[in-house]
């Protein structure tokens, strides 16, 4: 299964909906994520800079209700883009927090403050979907 294919998009939706494997971090961290996710409704578009393909994930009341691939992310609340090399690094296990810190993944559209109110939920979802077996 190659990443950014329809099959992969469905697997990504199922994986982020199931949530991250809870290991190695304190319960306070996972509890925070549960609170951030509860009732969360927003649309994330995660794109590859070179190909212009976006994975659009629709969160509705804390559930990841839909995933699709598109070249037009204009319906998303938050549009984030990284290079193919960064996606490859993430798949190889690069720390997603570090990728955000070094702005290898950029928020190209969307409100920065509301995006960060769920930041660890986003980071763990990113880790989950970017490391799917491909």
């Amino acid at each position, binding site marked *: 299964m190659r990443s950014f294919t329809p099959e992969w998009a469905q697997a990504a939706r199922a994986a982020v909906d199931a949530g991250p494997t809870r290991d190695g971090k304190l319960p306070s961290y996972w509890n925070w994520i549960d609170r951030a996710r509860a009732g969360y409704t927003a649309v994330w578009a995660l794109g590859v800079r070179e190909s212009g393909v976006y994975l659009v994930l629709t969160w509705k009341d804390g559930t990841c209700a839909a995933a699709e691939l598109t070249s037009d992310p204009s319906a998303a609340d938050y549009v984030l883009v990284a290079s193919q090399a960064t996606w490859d690094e993430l798949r190889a296990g690069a720390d997603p*927090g570090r990728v*955000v810190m070094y702005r290898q993944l950029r928020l190209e559209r969307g409100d920065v403050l509301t995006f960060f*109110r769920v930041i660890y939920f986003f980071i763990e979802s990113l880790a989950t979907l970017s490391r799917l077996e491909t």
Partner: protein
Amino acid sequence: MTSLSDVADSDLRGIRDLDIDDVLAYVHRDLKRLPGYTELYKRYLRQRWDVYELDFSQDVVDWRERMTQEERDAFVGISAGFHHGERQVEVELPVFMLGGSEESKIYMSSQIEDEARHTVFFDRFYREVVGMPGDSVQDVLDASFEHVSETFVGPFGLLAYQADELRKDPEDPAARVRYGTTYFLWIEGVLALSVMKITLTYCRERGFLPGYYTGFTATCRDEARHVQFGMRFLRDSVQEDPRLLLQIHETLRTILAINGAASRRLALESLGWTPEEVRRLMIRQLHMKLTDVGIAIPPDIQDMVARIEPELAGG
């Protein structure tokens, strides 16, 4: 008790004898008056210190022979958030310099240099005392990254993304105020000053790490200028356009919402602190800035402040 003019005028040799509480008092003394940008720039020219003058030879002995493994682990864990924090505040600052008055830009050049020097300070400490390997600054950052908490990306990733937002229009007053709230009020005014108090009190009480003590106390004195600049900037912004107060509030709501997601246990006890003491220290640091500068906060934010959890990083 040293006088606050000793804090202002000491060279590196004199800084070694200063008490962190006096330096923190020095940070806050001018908050009610808030010096102008040119005065802060002049002060920078007098207070600038040479990071390569620091002598870490006794620190190496203390680190290897006098500190316990537990103390070393706690110290590395807490300082790693500062090592990466200094780098982050250094690289995110130039975009802020693009906006504001000419006086503000001139002052900003000095803070960018300060933050770069602080990054070198931690690079030297990790390389020479902790013994982390690396040919470049990035190598040492990469070596210390495993000690950085997962929740570092909360405030520091926020700053990176706010810097990106500001890059689109460096003169946008609302974006500048949001960025300034994260950088000057929270990261510098609360997080950094709290870590300084914790690690420097430990060094002083135990008589350990004189090179680290000297450099980090000098860093704290630099922080006085940074925080005073920042509070002046926020106060003047709100006086010019009272609606900008809402931007401070919205930013604080995000910052306080992401506080409290601790992913790792901080071994504060081995440095002589309880989590409750750190919590109170952070709340006090935030309150002092808000009241001195006259930033009123609504009840929902007051409730969030009362629930602040320990979070150790800085820059």
